[in-house]
């Protein structure tokens, strides 16, 4: 029982390593069974962990018995347990989709996929900033390989940009970590939160520089304004299951911003309290604006979805800039909703592209789909959800974020931008739907129908939209508690450290 916290990291690691060895490595059917069963177990484990965290509070796992702040600790609190569950479920859906022969187009798809899941889970669970860097690298190197998986000009070119950008990001991450270690003498998140308030005045400027370097890195991961140019090309050129899994990657950046700038540089950070808000405000607003412009200019459904990822990242950054419990809770709800919906749209875009032949997913008039009703129904739900129309989860998510702006000045700043972005999404989706579904000639299309696995995967992702509303009460109360825990040093910091080090 005590080792449960590390299982979301260990299980994919072990299975992925076993997949590289002979008995499994050459049999695609076995590989599929292995990865789907692993991810199913992982989803069950993660949901059990959520229930454990609800009943027993945060779980601290000390690797190798080196007690914090010296060793590496894993922390499963309400926020990270929820995000691990989200990752596992999303990965399961993407894997089911990939098993419809998307995994055959290149080698090592299954192990790479599991390594990526391991990296993402690790990034959510770790309680140590250097360990966060290591898990970032794990998930990045797996994502580099997954991005170029099955090859092609477009993918290689997108990958060059993506890899170079992220390698630069890694260097900046290390510079930031070194500065913070040099001033604070620790990299354990909880310990840093304690030490930051005792920092002598001469060192605060250094700590601030280190923290801002980290903000640049997390901004790069989460597609914050000047650093978002890589995203739309990367996501739209990746193969569908990979792009859908990437939907959670920007959220890793957002999570890190919340973790670092709420726990370490939060309300109790003395001179440096909440200093990042001033930087996040304009960047977040501009990110939404540029994302919306991108949405308007998107020529294909995949590009459209990729730009919507930028818009959702901007919305989450607004919540981070607001820096209150309500905003964090809204952001958490919004993370779950937007991850599932954008992943669903990426998968659906691939199905649509396959059935339309040469026109692919470009928003032009072309022949009809072979399953217009089924796909149209899914598309309608996903579109309504991401636009933020009731009765689906997007509505509640947006309401929570909008509602967390309490003062008049913040409302004036946030509401027009978010509501305009919703309107733009509405316009673009109406246009896309009329091109894809209505303006098509009525003749029968002989193209292959969607594989049952593809239908199941997209169906599971769509199911999230109504479920998040039906169980909206319990989900919102959970995210409220998670946000309250994150903002409360008595829960998010002190229990994670031995008493003598306080």
């Amino acid at each position, binding site marked *: 029982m005590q080792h449960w916290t590390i299982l979301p990291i260990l299980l994919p690691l072990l299975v992925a390593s076993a997949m590289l060895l002979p008995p499994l490595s050459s049999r695609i059917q076995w590989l599929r069974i292995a990865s789907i069963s692993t991810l199913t177990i992982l989803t069950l484990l993660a949901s059990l962990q959520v229930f454990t965290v609800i009943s027993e509070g945060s779980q601290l796992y000390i690797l190798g018995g080196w007690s914090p702040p010296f060793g590496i600790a894993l922390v499963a609190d309400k926020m990270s347990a929820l995000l691990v569950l989200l990752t596992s479920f999303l990965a399961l859906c993407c894997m089911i989709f990939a098993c419809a022969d998307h995994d055959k187009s290149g080698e090592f798809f299954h192990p790479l996929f599991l390594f990526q899941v391991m990296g993402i889970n690790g990034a959510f669970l770790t309680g140590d900033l250097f360990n966060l860097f290591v898990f970032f690298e794990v998930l990045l190197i797996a994502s580099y390989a997954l991005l170029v998986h099955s090859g092609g000009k477009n993918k290689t070119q997108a990958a*060059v940009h993506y890899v170079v950008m992220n*390698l630069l990001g890694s260097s900046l991450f*290390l*510079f930031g970590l*070194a500065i913070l270690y*040099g001033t604070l003498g620790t990299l354990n998140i909880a310990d840093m939160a304690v030490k930051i308030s005792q920092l002598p005045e001469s060192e605060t400027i250094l700590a601030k520089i280190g923290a801002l370097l980290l903000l640049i890195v997390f901004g790069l991961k989460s597609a914050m304004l000047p650093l978002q140019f890589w995203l739309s090309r990367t996501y739209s050129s990746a193969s569908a299951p990979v792009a859908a899994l990437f939907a959670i990657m920007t959220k890793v950046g957002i999570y890190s911003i919340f973790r670092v700038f709420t726990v370490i540089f939060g309300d109790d950070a003395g001179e440096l309290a909440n200093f990042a808000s001033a930087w996040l405000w304009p960047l977040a607003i501009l990110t939404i604006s540029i994302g919306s412009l991108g949405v308007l200019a998107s020529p294909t459904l995949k590009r459209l979805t990729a730009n919507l990822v930028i818009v959702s990242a901007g919305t989450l950054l607004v919540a981070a800039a607001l820096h209150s419990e309500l905003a964090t809770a809204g952001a958490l709800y919004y993370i779950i909703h937007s991850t599932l919906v954008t992943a669903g749209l990426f998968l659906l875009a691939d199905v649509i592209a396959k059935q339309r032949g040469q026109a692919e997913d470009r928003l032009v008039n072309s022949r009809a789909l072979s399953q217009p009703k089924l796909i149209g129904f899914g598309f309608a739900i996903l579109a309504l959800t991401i636009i933020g129309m009731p009765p689906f989860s997007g509505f509640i998510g947006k309401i929570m974020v909008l509602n967390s702006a309490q003062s008049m000045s913040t409302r004036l700043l946030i509401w027009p931008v978010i509501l305009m972005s919703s309107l733009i999404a509405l316009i673009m989706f109406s246009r896309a739907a009329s091109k894809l579904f209505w303006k098509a000639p009525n003749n029968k299309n002989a193209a292959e129908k969607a594989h049952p696995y593809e239908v199941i995967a997209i169906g599971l992702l769509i199911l999230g939209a109504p479920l998040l509303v039906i169980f909206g009460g319990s989900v919102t109360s959970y995210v409220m508690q998670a946000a309250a825990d994150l903002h409360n040093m008595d829960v998010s910091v002190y229990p994670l450290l031995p008493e003598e080090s306080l």
Partner: protein
Amino acid sequence: MEGIYAFCVGILTTCGIYLTLRGRTFSVVLGLTMLSYAVNLFLFASGRLSIDSAVILGESEIYADPLPQALVLTAIVIGFAMTAFVLILAMRARADLGNDHVDGKDPTEIPAATAPNRKGEIN
């Protein structure tokens, strides 16, 4: 010692950033490598520079902080793997795209539409 050390890190970082901003993949890869050297040195210095000090308590008058050394080791390993990957990717891009420009296009190349045809006319 601190002065020389800081100067080296600064030079490496400057060269690294300059080279990373270049247009061809080879210089970008070189730039990333230099940047990772700079980072490794910088990380090492975050535990403060000291001479004649052991990383074990009681072996010398002052002790050196062992943690940055462990961090540097991890960073070196990861940086090495990443450099290997980006090198292979750069070669693959050279093969797939037909040139070694980061954007995949040779900016000096005349676009096909304005290139003179066989008779020398521009169409």
